[in-house]
């Protein structure tokens, strides 16, 4: 908009300036203002060009896209505009100088001078005639009475054909006058130089151009005064020139004056034309230069945008859209670029959506695997661990993240507990079986664990083939099945055996009572020993049946807050001073959290464990039992840990898997229910128990939850 306005203003201003230079009456008076206006436009254009140059230089220094092309086009446009303009200007100036000079000719000038001189010569003769007439009239006035002078002047004016006769005093004061023009009452007083000339005795005659009245001849002569020679008077006469002569003389004078004025104005006229032409050229050139900036930028703009768009595409900004160009080839190029960019962006978006979908599926799979209670391992074709879930680390009790990228056998070297598992997997992989299932037992810090493992080869795909191993810890399940079986056995034993025991016992007592008195000494003793044996064995069987009954009966827990350390100290006190003098070492955590449990059942648990340890260390010269408590850590953070370590011969590896089952004992006098009851109490409290051999003996680890889950 500003460009259009400035363009219109410039064109209008140049037109008016040209019109004013041609001396039209309409714009001539505005010439100076137009010059000022064009000067202002000139300054504005210079400012705009400097601003554009500065912008171009800045973009060149910044190496902006399209700046070099703009500069090149700009230079081309400027050369194309300036060179022809300068050539036209040079020729115009030459024509101007010669054209103005050609208006003036020496011959014309001489002719005008001659015409003027001729006119003057012609009028000189007439002036002398008029002077003589006036002198004659002055002679008449010499003898005139003062009172008669006005009348005499009137007569003389008519006689001499003067338009005005005036009689002046010696000091130039008007004495009397007579004129044909009654409106102009007061005649002009002669100049002092003329009066001085008259005083010197020389008459004065000259032409006198009078505005709106034409040429006149003004003559002045002295009127002698015989009576007073010192106060001579002056007679002034004004004689009109004949109209024909006046017209001719005026024409000659006008032509001469006009030619002379034109000749004088020749220099300023050239300067004026030169100034106008230079200003027009300068403004046109500056406007062309300024327009060249605009055109170059407009032409280069689509190319610059294309370059920027290409850079953006290269930088990964797919989908970059350029503003639409025109209908020319550049516009076609822009449209093609936009189509290409849009398609690339669509492809990129489709790829991103696919990737997001894969990521979502991967996340979903990881979530599912993470929630699975079964352990899952993904192995690469070379047997190295690729991924795993949380349950796998928990079941194997090893930080599997340390083994990612390496075979399980390498991890087994650091953690020997999983050696059987690693060996099983390695063996199955080597066998090349596509699917397999096998059970394996691990001896971990938490005790022996039985895992059901199954494996399958993964199908080939982008992620590569390999194998997936799924395994479950079935230790608890097996144990539960055993516990259930043993509970059923115990319940049946209690039920089937308890019923006949009382009749047997009563029968034996009656037999001893009824028959013992009738028998003599040796037979009576025999009977008594036999019946006593029966009674004692029945009592023993009753106790055993009661024990089985207690084992099979579901508990009724009385939960309350329990300080496990206090229970341990209390239980240990009961065994101090017993045979064998066991040495108790207590490492009880000071900050042990109290737990929610049945204190009576926990006392029984501690009693059985200590009793078991004492029995295991019987016969040892230095019987030592170590009890240690601590707050659980890691995945056992919500549990308490109790370790009972003895320095006995350790557990028999053959029975260690069935150690907590009823009737499993390695002691000659053990009932086989001590550790089974311990395990039952632990399970009643939702805890875990495990046993393993150490370098110094056997160690039983109990974990009890801080709070019972309802």
């Amino acid at each position: 908009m500003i460009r259009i306005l400035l363009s219109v203003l410039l064109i209008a201003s140049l037109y008016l300036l040209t019109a004013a230079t041609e001396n039209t009456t309409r714009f001539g008076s505005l010439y100076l203002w137009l010059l000022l206006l064009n000067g202002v436009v000139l300054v504005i254009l210079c400012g705009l060009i400097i601003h554009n140059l500065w912008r171009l230089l800045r973009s060149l220094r910044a190496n902006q896209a399209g700046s070099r092309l703009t500069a090149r086009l700009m230079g081309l446009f400027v050369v194309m505009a300036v060179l022809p303009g300068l050539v036209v200007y040079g020729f115009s100036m030459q024509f101007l100088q010669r054209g103005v000079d050609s208006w003036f000719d020496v011959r014309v000038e001489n002719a005008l001078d001659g015409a003027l001189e001729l006119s003057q010569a012609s009028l000189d003769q007439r002036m002398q005639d008029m002077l003589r007439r006036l002198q004659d009239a002055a002679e008449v006035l010499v003898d005139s009475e003062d009172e008669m002078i006005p009348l005499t002047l009137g007569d003389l004016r008519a006689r001499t054909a003067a338009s005005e006769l005036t009689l002046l005093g010696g000091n130039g004061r008007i004495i009397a006058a007579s004129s044909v023009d009654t409106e102009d009452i007061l005649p002009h007083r002669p100049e002092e130089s003329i009066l001085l000339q008259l005083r010197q005795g020389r008459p004065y005659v000259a032409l006198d151009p009078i505005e709106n009245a034409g040429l006149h001849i003004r003559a002045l002569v002295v009127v002698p005064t015989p009576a007073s020679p010192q106060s001579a008077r002056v007679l002034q006469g004004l004689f009109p020139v004949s109209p024909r002569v006046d017209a001719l003389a005026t024409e000659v004078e006008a032509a001469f004056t006009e030619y002379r004025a034109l000749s004088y104005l020749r220099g300023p006229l050239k300067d004026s034309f030169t100034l106008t032409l230079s200003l027009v050229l300068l403004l046109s050139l500056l406007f062309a230069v300024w327009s060249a900036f605009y055109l170059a930028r407009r032409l280069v703009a689509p190319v610059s945008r294309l370059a920027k768009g290409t850079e953006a595409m290269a930088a990964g900004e797919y989908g970059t859209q350029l503003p639409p160009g025109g209908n020319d080839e550049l516009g076609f190029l822009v449209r093609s670029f936009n189509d290409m960019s849009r398609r690339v962006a669509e492809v990129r978006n489709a790829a991103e959506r696919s990737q997001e979908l894969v990521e979502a599926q991967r996340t979903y799979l990881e979530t599912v695997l993470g929630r699975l209670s079964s352990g899952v391992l993904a192995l690469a074709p070379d047997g190295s661990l690729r991924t795993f879930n949380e349950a796998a680390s928990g079941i194997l009790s090893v930080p599997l993240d340390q083994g990612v990228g390496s075979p399980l056998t390498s991890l087994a070297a650091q953690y020997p507990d999983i050696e059987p598992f690693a060996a099983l997997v390695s063996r199955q992989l080597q066998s090349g079986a596509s699917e397999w299932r096998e059970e394996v037992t691990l001896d971990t810090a938490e005790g022996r664990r039985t895992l059901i493992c199954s494996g399958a080869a993964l199908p080939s795909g982008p992620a590569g083939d390999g194998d997936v191993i799924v395994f479950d810890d079935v230790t608890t399940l097996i144990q539960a099945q055993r516990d259930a079986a043993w509970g059923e056995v115990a319940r049946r034993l209690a039920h089937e055996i308890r019923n006949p025991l009382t009749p047997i016992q009563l029968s034996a007592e009656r037999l001893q009572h009824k028959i013992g008195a009738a028998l003599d000494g040796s037979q009576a003793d025999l009977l008594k020993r036999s019946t006593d044996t029966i009674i004692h064995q029945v009592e023993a069987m009753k106790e055993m049946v009661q024990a089985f009954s207690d084992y099979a009966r579901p508990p009724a827990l009385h939960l309350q807050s329990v300080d496990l350390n206090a229970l341990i100290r209390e239980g240990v006190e009961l065994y101090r001073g017993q045979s064998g003098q066991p040495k108790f070492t207590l490492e009880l955590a000071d900050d042990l959290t109290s737990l929610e449990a049945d204190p009576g059942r926990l006392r029984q648990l501690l009693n059985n464990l200590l009793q078991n340890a004492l029995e295991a260390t019987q016969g040892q010269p230095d019987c030592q039992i170590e009890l240690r408590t601590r707050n659980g850590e890691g995945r056992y953070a919500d549990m308490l840990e109790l370790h009972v370590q003895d320095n006995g011969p350790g557990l028999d590896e053959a029975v260690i898997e069935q150690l907590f089952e009823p009737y499993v004992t390695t002691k000659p006098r053990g009932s086989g229910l001590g550790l089974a009851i311990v395990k039952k109490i632990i399970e009643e409290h939702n805890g875990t128990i495990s046993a393993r051999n150490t370098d110094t003996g056997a160690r039983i680890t109990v974990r009890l939850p801080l709070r019972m889950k309802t």
Partner: protein
Amino acid sequence: MAFTTLACAKINRWAVLQRFMLGCVVWALAGTALSSGDFRVDNIVPRFEAELLSMDAQLTYRLSEKADQALTNGLPLEIQQTLQVQRKRKWWFNAAVVTQQRHYRIQFHALSRRYVLTRLETGASRSFRDRQALLSALGRIEGWPVMRESAVQALGPIQLRLTTKLVRDALPRVLRMAAWLDADWQLRGGPLVKEVQP
């Protein structure tokens, strides 16, 4: 001869602004060049006569070399005399009450070899044998009627402000540009201010 022009008392601000801007431009371009000519207002003598305030004044006109050369080559020159009656105001510029102007044209008549002085408002003209006589006559003002004595009484103390200048706008157009830029054409005299008590 009604040559008295009554001007509006209100100052034409736009005209003042134009003159100021043009003056700045001319001053900037002309630099410190000094004119060889000289116009002066030497004296103002106000007098009350027949219930009329009149003014006599003496001015000096000396043409610059370029102006003289232009006159000799037949170019007419226009000279303006401006008389302004101002009423004094406190804390503000004086208010122009009356502005009167006289325009004269001086020209060399080649045929008669005389210099012609013409009063443009009336067309009355006089010719002089030499230029100096013309300029002397031009500089001698006698009995310039200003305003009625009763009007002066009503206004209170007034000031007569007389200026004169060569009218450059009356020059031929091709010479006008140079006249604006050349100090030899910056011919002006006054102002001379004379206070008049009623």
